[in-house]
């Protein structure tokens, strides 16, 4: 029996994440959606979701007094960031005229519109990047176990992560340009896409996470 915390800081709908984790967790495991720092600290592994604007996410983390709790979890237990939960781990985002993030990793979050041709008309990329896109696995990782190279995952986002450290990149996706769709280091794995909405591939990744010992190498 283990406890899995989904960090609830008032941003977005956590029902699907919770149901997907319950689906892949063991019958004795408990999936808890919580905003209480001590409850999060007492869990064996932590899922850090998020949606909406970077500024709102950072503000909500501060309001709930959860910044240090998130950082602490990312330092010492199996940790899965999803969507904005990946973006706010970086240094800063271009969103809302520049928003400082948690700076757990060095890198920027950039707007598609500043880097690829977006908008109406032929040969333009529509924003948000919405739908199923392929993820190239850039490093062998326990969380990719059983998932084919280039599998499709579901994305909904207008901003993307650019890592300063290439060793951090665990997955890359193309949308007008190649962008980092997954990062991994030590006990942290984070994804731009939504595993809870990515059918079999997403459920397999969540299942791998639920069983992960937090080591980034393959045993």
């Amino acid at each position, binding site marked *: 029996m283990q406890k899995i915390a989904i960090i609830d800081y008032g941003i977005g*709908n956590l029902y699907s994440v919770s149901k997907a984790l319950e689906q892949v967790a063991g019958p004795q495991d408990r999936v808890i959606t919580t905003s209480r720092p001590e409850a999060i600290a007492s869990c064996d592994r932590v899922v850090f979701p998020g949606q909406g604007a970077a500024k709102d996410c950072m503000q909500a983390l501060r309001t709930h007094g959860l910044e240090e709790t998130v950082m602490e979890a990312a330092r010492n237990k199996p940790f899965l960031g999803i969507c904005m939960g990946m973006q706010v781990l970086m240094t800063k985002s271009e969103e809302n005229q520049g928003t400082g993030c948690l700076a757990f990793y060095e890198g920027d979050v950039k707007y598609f519109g500043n880097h690829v041709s977006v908008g109406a008309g032929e040969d333009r990329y529509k924003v948000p990047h919405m739908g199923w896109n392929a993820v190239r696995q850039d490093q062998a990782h326990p969380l990719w176990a059983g998932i084919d190279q280039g599998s499709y995952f*579901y994305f909904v986002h207008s901003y993307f992560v650019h890592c300063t450290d290439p060793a951090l990149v665990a997955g890359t996706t193309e949308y007008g340009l190649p962008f980092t769709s997954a990062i991994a280091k030590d006990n942290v794995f984070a994804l731009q896409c939504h595993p809870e909405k990515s059918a079999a591939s997403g459920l397999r990744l969540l299942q791998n996470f639920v069983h992960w010992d937090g080591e980034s190498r393959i045993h």
Partner: protein
Amino acid sequence: MSLAKRIIPCLDVDAGRVVKGVQFVDIRDAGDPVEVAKRYDDEGADEITFLDITASSDNRNTMVHVVEQVAAQVFIPLTVGGGIRTVKDIRTLLNAGADKVAINTAAVFNPEFVCEASARTGAQCIVVAIDAKRVSTGNEAPRWELFTHGGRKPTGLEAIAWAKKMEAFGAGEILLTSMDCDGMKTGFDLELTRAVSEAVGIPVIASGGVGTLEHLAEGVSLGCADAVLAASIFHFGEYTIGQAKAYMASKGIVVRT
């Protein structure tokens, strides 16, 4: 590698039951939204749209329970449309596990509702559904207008300008239905689809008129749609989602496999 074009089966739900007779031979209860949604998920549907056609307001909450049950077992994006009028309606559906809501009539009567909804829940959740009918005749330049009440009531609003306005108001996606083609099985109104898709910088879902797999492929290749939605060709077992994807792939369209 690139973004796949989506195939979206659409289910009409009346008082919590799937209607229009879904005919899968091996499904125990063809009226059960969970069973039908699971089946489409297994076949490889990229997303599922539920259209609440419940007439009585007494049964409004039924749809919320349907979404909750489906979202607990089917892990692909879910869109819900039909009778959504307030931000509270939207929040309730999102909390039940819907990813997006489709707003139609409420947007026509109160466009600011789209602004408010988008600001409060995020553009990615807000699909604006447009029911358009061709009003030009003969040699006139093509022109489409919005109709409400299942295509019966004209609004005088021009469809392309309306789509652009809805994008500016914060829509994250357009669900475009041709009322001329809907139910006809003669294919999408490709001219309309292309005109709207090229006018906006948000994804466009083509809807209305699919009778063959070729129609689905044309919606993307000629209509420039980002996704195609169909109901009857999947419900009546004429084609599976897998067959649709294989056909589209054979035409050089990127699909999720």
